[in-house]
């Protein structure tokens, strides 16, 4: 059982990283100016970084949620996470307000 769990995990990670690669590559292609090239190693580095960061954020979010007695992660958790970056927080709040009407409309 342990084995298969491990297996799963590894496969999962691989797949996720793959998708992440794709996302990041597209982003990079968009952001970089014309003359600049990048190597696969660069994308790899980004992927690792990003993945680690995401995992870390995820852990934090889970921890916050649990601390608040909830089982699911919510927006409050994210806001708590971003308590140090005011600007980012503002930005996300704005987005939320924009999205929420849409979400509400989607729900309906």
């Amino acid at each position: 059982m342990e084995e298969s769990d491990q297996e799963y995990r590894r496969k999962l990670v691989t797949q996720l990283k793959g998708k992440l690669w794709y996302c990041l590559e597209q982003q990079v292609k968009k952001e970089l100016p014309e003359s600049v090239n990048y190597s696969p190693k660069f994308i790899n580095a980004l992927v690792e970084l990003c993945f680690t960061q995401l995992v870390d954020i995820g852990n934090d979010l889970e921890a916050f949620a649990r601390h608040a007695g909830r089982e699911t992660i919510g927006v409050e958790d994210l806001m708590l996470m971003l308590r140090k970056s005011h600007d980012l927080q503002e930005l996300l709040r704005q987005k939320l307000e924009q999205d929420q009407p849409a979400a509400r409309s989607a729900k309906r």
Partner: protein
Amino acid sequence: MHSAEGDSFSDDDLENFLENNVNRSVEQTVSRRSIPQQRDLFGKVLSNQKAFYEEVHTEVTYGPTHHQLDMDQVGTYIYPTNYEIREYQFEIVKRALFENLICAIPTGTGKTFIASAVMLNFYRWTKDAKIIFTAPTRPLVAQQIKACLGVTGIPHSDTAILLDKSRKNRVEIWASKRVFFTTPQVVENDLKRGVLNPKDIVCMVIDEAHRARGSYSYVEVTKFLDRFNTSYRLLALTATPAADLEGVQEVVHNLNISRIELRTEEDADVSRYMKKRDKEEIEVPLSAEIEDLIEQLGVAVTPVLKEAVELGLYDDCPPAQINAFVALQKSQKLVANPTIPEGVKWRNFFILQLLSHVGHMLKRLKIYGIHSFYKYFENKHKEFTTKYGMGKSTNKTAASFFYNPILKNVIRTCEKLLANPGFLGHRKLEYVQEELKRFVQECQPTSRVIVFTELRESALEIVKCIDMMQTNDLRPHIFIGQARGKEGFDDEEYTRKHKPKGRKKTDRLRRLEEEKEREEKKKQNKERDRLNRMSSRTGTSEEAQVTGMNQKQQKDVLQKFKDGIYNVLVCTSIGEEGLDIGEVDLIICYDSTGSPIKNIQRMGRTGRKRDGRITLLLSGSEPKKFAQAMDDYAELQRIVGRNSLEYRPSDRILPISVAPICEKKFICIGEEEDELNNMDDSDDVIKFATQAMTGKLNIKKNKSSRAKKKVEKTAKAFFMPDNVETGIVPASSMVNKFGSDINGNKIKLERPEPQVDLRYALLDDIALESPASSPIKPETEPSCRLEPFEMSSILARHRKATKNGDTSEAMGTVETGYTSVFSDQPVSDSKRTQSSTTPTNSLDEADLPSKRPRISGEAAPTTYAFKTENVGIPLTAKSQESSGPNGSQVYKNEFHKLDGLLSSQERQYFQDNYSALCRVCIEPVPNFRENVKTGHLPHSQKTGRLIEAFKNMTTNTKEIILAMSSYKAIAAQLENNARPLVEPKERFPPSIVVQDSDVRYITGSACKQMSPGSCDVRNRTNDADLSDFLDSDFSDL
């Protein structure tokens, strides 16, 4: 594979610079081949291995010659047939025309002929290039003139001999003539004075080339010539190139030799032309008296010797075997050794000195005989006893020797023996007499004998001994060098000098009178002695031995020797080399030298035109010494033959297309030239040649008097290599001016004119400094100019004003905002250094207050509105220069030298006033591990993982690479499958941090391709489901 080709790098850097201007081009190709590396069991490559095998191949090619060639003559080369053609000469001449070579053939086998042939041909081939023949001494040069001109038929209106000390007409002579006979020092001086143009020379013949070592004139001349001219042929003549391999190699290098033509008497082609040479080595036993004396000396010196052995100064040996040279060497080493205390040092020195004296005495006894020995011994004895007696010397060691009772015996014996005029000091003299007797029986009026010995006294002794034979058929004379003989120790003089002198005036007057008297007496004595000497038959010899022979006297004796007035010449080493003593029938080597060269030179005096006989008288340790020397020489011959020498390529001078064919011609010598052949005396030859040179010879024929041409003083010329810019050029204008393009040619780098931007009012005066000044300003300048506070306030103001300054290009980093001030391009060079050095200097100070706990008294600069992240900025100018790309890419695009760094003054300030305890770090890269407490804490998980991840990335492990490839593959798949869905849905506005469109679009695509049921990913929180989804490889399509 070939890597870069470029100029070779010879030892002398100066040659590098000048090589570009000389005709030679050197190509170095480096070919590398990778060789398998050794690995350990884990597959790791072991350290300290060369990864490649490198071969450097140097090719030297010469451009076309600058001399003007006479094209009609160049098709052939003339070989004079005035003398019988000898194959070895023919071969050597042929080779010498195209390569620089050393001609090492035995004495008397026709080197001069070879030289003449080569000189003749170069004379014909070039229209007005110069040919120089050099030899070490003037008599030698004279000799060669005769030989050369007599053979080659070069008109002597074109030749010059430069042996006089006057420099009057030199300029004119060098300019007008083509063939020169001179000594190398003359050539050297005239080259360096600018009187002779190095580029004019096409051929140089060097006689006695084994002297071309160290910094002898030959070497200097060649070095000088090489700087300007490669188109000259060098022919080196010698009988013996050197005594060992290093010596030969040195000569080869110094003269740029491509080849050595070596012949010895054993070689068939040479020996055919040599007459028979009968060599006999006679080992002469020591006479009983000598043995006796040796033993007595041994007894006297034994205690000293024992002491020396005990102290470890000298190796043990029987007293009769004390070696003077070894003792001398050891004593010199001792004096040079700084670690021994003075008292001990000098005591030991005296011991060794005494041993070396005794060694000398023994040597004289064994090799030269009792006369020589006694003279030396008595001198030393007298010297010592006088000094010691007067208390001037406290050398107890020497005292124990010289005052030894046995020595009294020695003195007595010697005096007794020497009182007998018929006594032969050494058995060798007996043998000499025997040989000469035999010689007399067979001799003819033209027979001659030479006796070689090293010591002058010995030479005189031999002369006297021969004289004692009282036969008229043997008329000996001594032949020695110019130096005055060393005066023996005069004990009277010494005693008188060191006597305590009276101080009173009367005493002084008396002393002066006494001195005058003594002077008179001495002079009279000298006269008397001289007259006494003159009266004896060997008078002149004796005289000569005392005073030395000057060149005139030498020539005199030589002339008489040739004429037959003397038929036995007893010479020292002066007679070994060079002098044209003519043919002798008998050579007696009274002693043997350790040098094979000298031996060979000596023995080369016979067997040329007639059969000859050589007798070597060896006694004591001489047989061994001689055999060793000859062995060494034979070894050398073998080595040279074996091609283990490194040669240099020569300039062929003639173009490759021209291959001259040999024309054997008999040279007809005009009667003028022939006159030379009839002259014997070298002085006459010189006089003749000089006259010819200055045109006086034709006066008789040419009735019209030559108008005295006023010689213009030519400007002193310093010879420059080609393509040189002359004049004084300031170094600053040359800095960074030249680069090289792909062909290795120099191209001028255009320095962009720095724009003088006068935005910053305060910096006007700096900006208005000359823009042509060096971009590298001295570090200390900026900090002296402006107060840091002032500077920073200015910049704080300006920063706000120029917030939209140019951002640096490629670095899309967030920090460009900070650095806009610094990366302003239009700022002039000088200003830039100003503006950027000082503010960051102040920035550093701004940082440091936070680090320094104690310093509060310092006016905390609060005007700094910006914070910077100085992590990793190198803090001194120097380190920034070296780690340029590392430092600059973090913050700025372009850094000029001193931006943001501490000048050395500032660094010094911090070093003086702050210690490491303040946690002030002025290292270029702060070492956070050691200097900061938090450096020891472990990382957080996240950072730990990041570090892990990046570490793995740099090590290129297989798994990482596999992982990377798998991610990439997945991404590629996605890309391929998702391409039709490029357009994101409009309803989702783009966000900065995360692109909803992307995520949605991935998930959306997954949705599309998956079964519609599992569309809404956002509701999935289940790992298992997610993994299901993710594990799908979209092959269900």
